[in-house]
């Protein structure tokens, strides 16, 4: 009997210690295959329509609210940590653009939540509190107590979905990590995901939104595998007869893009590519020749907000991204996809938002099926 009590006590102690260790924050956050998305609510809720015929959907890579400031990691810049004033200034511009376009559902990529580089501001909560959008969900892509490189420090950047209507459930679907990095770099590097949210859209029993951000700089087939997994998620919804809208930053060109090499226009002053002695020959994330067909399966199965015909007829009109902050957008990387066709001619690539991010928002109307 005494032995049993001792054993129980020991088990309780071990369990307590285990729970205690679990309750502590790790230095780098890793993720399970499927996890719940973090849910957000605006401080003040704005009334949303009780019935809708069409909804406006927008996707936007907001570049962590840094505008066109020259960050070292993505624009050949020399800045690492921005000031609070700089970040709030950019967020106000982003909120103003959202108010202007008035999307009902907004898919956001590269949004920072309490990251050192952006003054620890919870940008998702800030956007909810400073726009008419009421609900949000978030899934981290890059989360570490500290990234011990370049003074980056704490990072939490990810994908988010904002909505007028309640988000009843959200899940983070894990995507494969880059396969072309050493173990240490990989440990502290980005962990991509699909953020899938169930939204209580009036008129539909089940309605999902999927937000996606593919690998930008992988030199192997990581991005293809990520795109294929994204398509597989859409296929599952189609098979169940569930309506959805989806999109994000695919870091891939349309399959009929005429220019596929941006190495020389993207390169920093001290970089050299394409020369006989250059190694690597191409700049990471700027050469698309080998991957130009990777979006084909999506185009074959789903309806893009911007059709290949429209894009081919006037490519520059639909460009959404440029690395160099001093030039106009020079390629299209951002997409919206649905099974039910979008409202014809309702798409807009908002290139007027050039000062707010290195990506332009893309919006389109979607007719809610009856």
């Amino acid at each position, binding site marked *: 009997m005494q032995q049993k009590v001792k054993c129980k006590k020991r088990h309780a102690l071990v369990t307590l210690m285990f729970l205690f260790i679990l309750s502590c924050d790790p230095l780098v956050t890793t993720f399970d295959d499927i996890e719940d998305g973090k849910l957000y609510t605006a401080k003040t809720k704005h009334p949303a329509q009780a019935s809708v015929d069409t909804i406006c959907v927008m996707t936007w890579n907001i570049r962590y609210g840094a505008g066109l400031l020259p960050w070292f990691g993505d624009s050949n810049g020399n800045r*690492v*940590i921005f000031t609070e004033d700089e970040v709030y200034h950019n967020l106000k511009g982003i909120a103003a653009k959202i108010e202007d376009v008035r999307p009902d559902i907004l898919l956001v990529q590269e949004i920072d939540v309490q990251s*050192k580089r952006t003054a620890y501001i919870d940008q998702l909560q800030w956007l909810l509190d400073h726009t008419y959008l009421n609900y949000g969900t978030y899934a981290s892509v890059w989360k570490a107590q500290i990234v*011990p490189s370049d*003074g980056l420090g704490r990072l939490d950047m990810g994908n988010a979905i904002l909505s007028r209507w309640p988000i009843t459930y959200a899940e983070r679907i894990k995507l494969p990590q880059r396969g072309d990095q050493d173990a240490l770099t990989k440990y502290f590097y980005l962990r991509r995901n699909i953020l899938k949210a169930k939204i209580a859209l009036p008129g539909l029993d089940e309605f999902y939104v999927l937000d996606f951000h593919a690998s930008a700089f992988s030199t192997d087939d990581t991005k293809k595998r990520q795109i294929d997994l994204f398509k597989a998620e859409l296929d599952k919804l189609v098979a169940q007869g569930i309506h959805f809208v989806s999109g994000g930053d695919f870091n891939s060109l349309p399959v009929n893009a005429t220019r596929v090499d941006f190495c020389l226009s993207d390169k920093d002053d001290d970089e050299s590519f394409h020369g006989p002695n250059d190694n690597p020959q191409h700049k990471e994330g700027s050469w698309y020749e080998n991957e130009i067909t990777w979006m084909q399966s999506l185009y074959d199965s789903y309806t893009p907000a911007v059709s290949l015909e429209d894009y081919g007829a006037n490519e520059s009109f639909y460009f959404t991204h440029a690395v160099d902050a001093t030039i106009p957008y020079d390629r299209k990387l951002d997409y919206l996809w649905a099974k039910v066709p979008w409202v014809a001619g309702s798409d807009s690539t908002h290139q007027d938002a050039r000062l707010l991010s290195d990506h332009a928002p893309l919006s389109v109307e979607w007719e809610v099926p009856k």
Partner: protein
Amino acid sequence: MKKLILIFSIIFFVFSGFSAFANDKTGSSWQTWPTGSAYLLPPHRIEIGLFQPLRYGFSESLEFSTHPLLFFVIPNFDVKWAHGEMGGFTITSAHGITYPSLLMDLVSKEGIGGLISPEFDIPHILSFQNALLASRVLFDDHLFTGKLALNFAVKSEKLDSRTTIDLPVTYPRMSVYYHDFGFRVGMDMKGPLFRRFCYVFNGELFYYPTAETDINSAFEHKGLLYWNKSSKFQICAGYLLSYCEYPFGTQWHLLPLLDAQWSWTW
């Protein structure tokens, strides 16, 4: 080579922080390994650990210490001064000076090892630590120590608040560079357990009155188990539990502690 020195310095800096100001060393009795309590090393006795400073008992009333290797990247020097007995307590004051700018400059760099962004200039910083320690024997062979410390820092110019290193152990100790002064209040118990094993339990509160209310305090608790091979060598293992208010919110961390210590008379 430079990278190796840098990595070693960072590890050393972090681990040495575990023991800074703390009573985390004892021996088969606290008289043999008194460091951290209000007791001083006996004259001419030297003590050093893998992550501990080099300590030297200069006289009955003075003890000097410094981190010998870390000295080259973070010059530091401490004096412990015995003041006798008062109300059954042994009273000692500890006074230290540190120049952290060199190390902060070293970790302010591009690429791996960059804990601070290279876009910032690190000013000259002198940090002063002043503590009052009071120890009293309880239950025959256990030692209780209470500590009250006032730390302050002077700088050649303002240190940008974006240079913080948001890590447990490190952040609360560096806070004084940003908030000019702060208090540390702590207490611990140490004593024998069985055979050659001893324990240390310690708790310490950090408080910076001039910091915003959501980032002005931190708490650390340590539990350590020591094994004394002799009066010349001991090893210890344990944990450090850290609660800290960071600029992004509060966090708990549980970290392992390990050390080996040597002592001899010179």
